[in-house]
Structure formats: C-alpha cells, structure tokens
C-alpha cells in the first residue's frame, strides 16, 4: 500500500485512489513541454501528486530515457504509466507488465486505442485488457469513453477508477457530452471518476468537477499553453473551484430574472405609480 509523504489532515478534502491518499485532484501528463525545466515548473505549479508517463523503444546508446526518468523521480510524485499507442489488448498487457517492472508500480493508465482518427478507446479491447491486467494484479485506470455500459463493466471487473474522455485527445474541445458524463456520475456513485482527455480550458476542468467528478487528467492544455507554469496554476485553481462548488451546493438555474437587492421599500414608488 502506498502512502504519500505529505499526508493530509482529516478535515481536508483528501481522497483515496486504490488505497493511496491524495490531496490534489489534478493528474498531469509529462509530454510536450518546451523543456524539462518548464515541465518541472508546471508540475510543481499544478500541485499534482500523480504524473503520467510512458515507455518507448530505445537505442542502447541513448541516455534520454534515464535522464527523463531521473527528472521525474526527483519530483516525488506517484507514477501512472500509460499504454499509449497500443491498439490491442495483447499489446497493452505486455506494455503494462514492462511498465510495472521499470516503474515499480502496479498502477496502469490503460489505453487501448480503437481508431487513429479520434484516438478513442476501443471498448472491446479495453474490457479484455482490463480483465487480464486485474488478474495479473494491476490497479487499472482505464481511459474509456463515456459509455455507461462500458463503464459499468469496467467497474464490475474491479476498476475502482474510471477515466472517461471529455473529447478526443489533444483537441481541447472540453466536455463534448456533459449529459453522458452526468449520467455516469449518477449511476456509478462509488466509482472514482476522472475526466481524461479533451480538456482545453480551466473552465472545462471546473465544469467537470462541478458535475461531481473526482479529478481531472490532462497534459496538452498545460504543456502547449504559451506559459505552461501559469496555466498549470490556473488548472489547479479551476479544479479546486469546481470541487468546492460541488460541495457548496450550487444554485439551480432559473428561467426568470429575480432581483438580488430586496424590493421591499424601494424608493420613489408611490400610490399613484400603480
């Protein structure tokens, strides 16, 4: 069982992911930053305690993997390796096992891509891979669609966390189908739900949290901002705002206007005005 160093006191809004207590609800990717220094500054500014990373083929003479690996390790974050690029359950299972050996974690962000155009999860391959990985002892964080039946099946297999997309990876379109995300939240109250992929603006992240989502995973919107560190801080605030809003009980929208200032005793009104 994992345990973060900076353990939160009970009165704070901490949460548990597969037994690990977290105080931040923003997971952040490590790719596409202008430089390693910017990446480190952005991760720090985001307050993220969980970072995603991946595995790629390397030539023996290349040192880049080791360097990246050391720079990440120095951050002291939980690692969430992904299986990005895998198109079949078999590939994803093998890559997950390689990740576990290298990163010494049984957490895996499971991606089984079903289409190279929208980079969407393959519901069929994903379910297959999830079943295999759970049997192999993994803690699976599935990158999934917002399909309730798929999500229910993943939960039934043992996923404590589900990570539906908001929009296709890298588009920054925000929440394409808020209704579907709402249905997931209503129907799967026990699941830890994170929106993964498609978040473009802090207001998107805030909106997802307002719906009662437990967290947000994103990468491009921070890494490709003009000022990634500033944007990371923006997203940290937005996730916080959305979480508090969910807890604070937002007013329902009304169709008709209603004065905020009291109307009783409004000056200048006289009998003959009637």
């Amino acid at each position: 069982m994992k345990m973060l160093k900076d353990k939160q006191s009970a009165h704070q809004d901490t949460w548990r992911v597969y037994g690990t207590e977290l105080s931040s609800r923003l997971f952040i990717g490590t790719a596409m930053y202008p430089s390693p220094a910017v990446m480190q500054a952005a991760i720090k500014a985001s307050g993220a305690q969980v970072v995603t990373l991946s595995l790629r083929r390397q030539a023996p003479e290349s040192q880049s993997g080791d360097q990246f690996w050391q720079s990440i390790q120095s951050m002291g974050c939980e690692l969430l390796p992904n299986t990005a690029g895998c198109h079949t359950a078999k590939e994803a299972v093998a890559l997950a096992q390689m990740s576990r050996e290298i990163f010494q974690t049984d957490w895996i962000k499971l991606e089984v891509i079903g289409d190279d155009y929208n980079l969407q999860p393959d519901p069929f391959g994903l379910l297959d891979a999830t079943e295999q990985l759970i049997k192999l002892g993994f803690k699976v964080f599935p990158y999934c669609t917002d399909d309730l039946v798929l999500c229910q099946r993943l939960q039934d297999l043992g996923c404590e966390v589900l990570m539906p997309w908001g929009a296709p990876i890298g588009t920054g379109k925000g929440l394409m189908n808020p209704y579907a995300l709402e249905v997931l939240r209503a129907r799967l109250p026990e699941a830890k739900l994170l929106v993964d992929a498609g978040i473009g603006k802090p207001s998107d992240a805030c909106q997802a949290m307002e719906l009662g989502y437990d967290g947000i995973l994103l990468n491009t919107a921070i890494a490709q901002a003009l000022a990634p560190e500033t944007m990371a801080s923006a997203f940290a605030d937005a996730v916080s705002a959305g979480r508090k809003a969910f807890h604070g009980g937002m007013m329902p929208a009304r169709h008709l206007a209603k004065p905020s200032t009291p109307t009783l005793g409004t000056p200048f009104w006289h009998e003959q005005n009637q």
Partner: protein
Amino acid sequence: MIEVSVNNQNRTVAKAINLTDALLGWGYAERTAVAVAINQVFVAKSDYAHTILNSGDEIDIVQPISGG
C-alpha cells in the same frame, strides 16, 4: 546464427543465445531502466537468463519517456 528483430531492426545473433547475453551484445548491459517483450509477450528480468531467442523473434526493448 539466427535472425531476430530488435525494435524493428534486423539483428543476427548466435543460435540458442539467451536474452541476458543478447542484451549484453546489443549494448544494453549498463541500462537498468529498460524492459523487454518478445513477440508482444513480456519477459521479466528474472527470466532473461533462461530465455532462449528463436529465429524470427520480435524483441521490444523500451525505456521511460514522457507521456500524457
């Protein structure tokens, strides 16, 4: 000698060579943060020594990289 594919590059190795020796020959001896799959099946470090390569094996050797 047999032919195998290493990260999609053709390589020739001695017949019946094990994975430990093959990695040594390819220059991966010093590297710790690597993992291996043969024909899309993971091979744990503890199994390298008794994993014998076969002709046509497709070997993937991976290292950490940034990811989203």
